[in-house]
């Protein structure tokens, strides 16, 4: 066992880990932050996406030890300071960008990474960026719509499909 320290959602966090402890295990099991989900555990589905030093990564395919000293943001860090939903989260609620909700934490984190790089993405760019996030309810249409709304697009003319 060894010690790891990082900043998670603006607060310092540390704990005892094994070499093989994944970042997602550290977040969920050591810190009790279960908002980050483990879907496939094979780096395909994207339910575990978090930001490490501002970049979206799959937390099931990164060791906790590799996040030593890093600045990590998880879905728990996406709400506003007063606890109300952040812009992207609110857009997912407003536009029904989720069905069962399992993929949602990863979808929101990927959306946040995209909008940080490209504040005004087209629908094609959004769909392209989400290629590593899988929704098995196949609710992509409203997810994309929610992200477009969060980016400030007028989505009122886009019908549900």
């Amino acid at each position, binding site marked *: 066992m060894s010690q790891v320290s990082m900043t998670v959602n603006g607060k310092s966090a540390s704990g005892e880990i094994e070499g093989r402890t994944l970042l997602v295990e550290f977040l969920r099991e050591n810190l009790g932050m279960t908002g980050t989900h483990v879907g496939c*555990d094979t780096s395909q589905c*994207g339910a575990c996406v978090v930001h490490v030093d501002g970049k979206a990564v*799959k937390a099931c*395919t990164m060791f906790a*030890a590799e996040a030593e000293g890093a600045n990590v943001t998880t879905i728990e860090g996406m709400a506003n300071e007063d606890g109300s939903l952040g812009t992207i989260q609110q857009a997912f609620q407003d536009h029904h960008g989720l069905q069962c909700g399992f993929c949602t934490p990863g979808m929101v984190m990927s959306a946040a990474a995209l909008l940080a790089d490209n504040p005004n993405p087209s629908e094609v760019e959004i769909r392209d960026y989400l*290629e*590593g996030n899988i929704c098995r309810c196949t609710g992509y249409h409203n997810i994309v719509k929610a992200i477009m709304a969060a980016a400030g697009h007028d989505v009122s003319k886009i019908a549900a499909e």
Partner: protein
Amino acid sequence: MYAFDIERPTRLTDAVKLLSDATDSQLIAGGQTLIPTLKQRLAMPERLVSLGAVDEIKGICTGDDGALCIGGGTTHADVAAGAGAYPALAGLAANIGDPAVRNRGTIGGSLANNDPSACYPSAVLASGATVVTNARQIAADDFFDGLFATNLEEGEIITEVRFPVPDAAAYMKFEQPASRFALVGVFVARFSGGVRIAVTGASEEGVFRWSEAEAALAGNFSAGALDGLSLSGDGMISDLHGSGDYRAHLISVMTRRAVAAA
């Protein structure tokens, strides 16, 4: 996963030292292949030596000879954003895996692994790039050595890849949609001295050069120059995604598209 320790040296010399001591060590770069491998218990190292904190092997610059020099620890995302001087290479990097994978996976890790369906080996071979390690320089034509095998020695670390920038180039990837690896990928590079074509995803021997097509394109760099040329399906990968004959056919198609796009 079996249990192991992780070391995170910050200097290349310390990483080299760790790899040469008595502990059974495995290098880890971005881990996008190695971590899934460890999860399946297909590897059992006593210790991982991470290159994640070795900043001296990250980054992109232009060499005195005009070559684009990419540090071995540079992520696909950083190559996509920073290799503008070689657009075909930047475009290749921008289409590996998905955004989150591109933020972790590195060029050095991809080359050292030499997956027969990986994208980077085709760029390195078609560009006639030089793979620089902590010990020596290896020409692309000598680097790749069959399925998941390279000319690298135990404990040797890829520090840099030097790409001569061609006059024209393009990479065309027929994507296997589930894995996003190349079902077939063809990288075409035209230099003043000739044309180099490298094919990934197809051969059971890994990345290879299609010399007949190179010769045909040398005098006439157009898709039409490839008319009548084809490859046999013998020795091509056959799996549930496509037969050897199908892959051989795709090589012709993707080469034509790459020439047209270059």
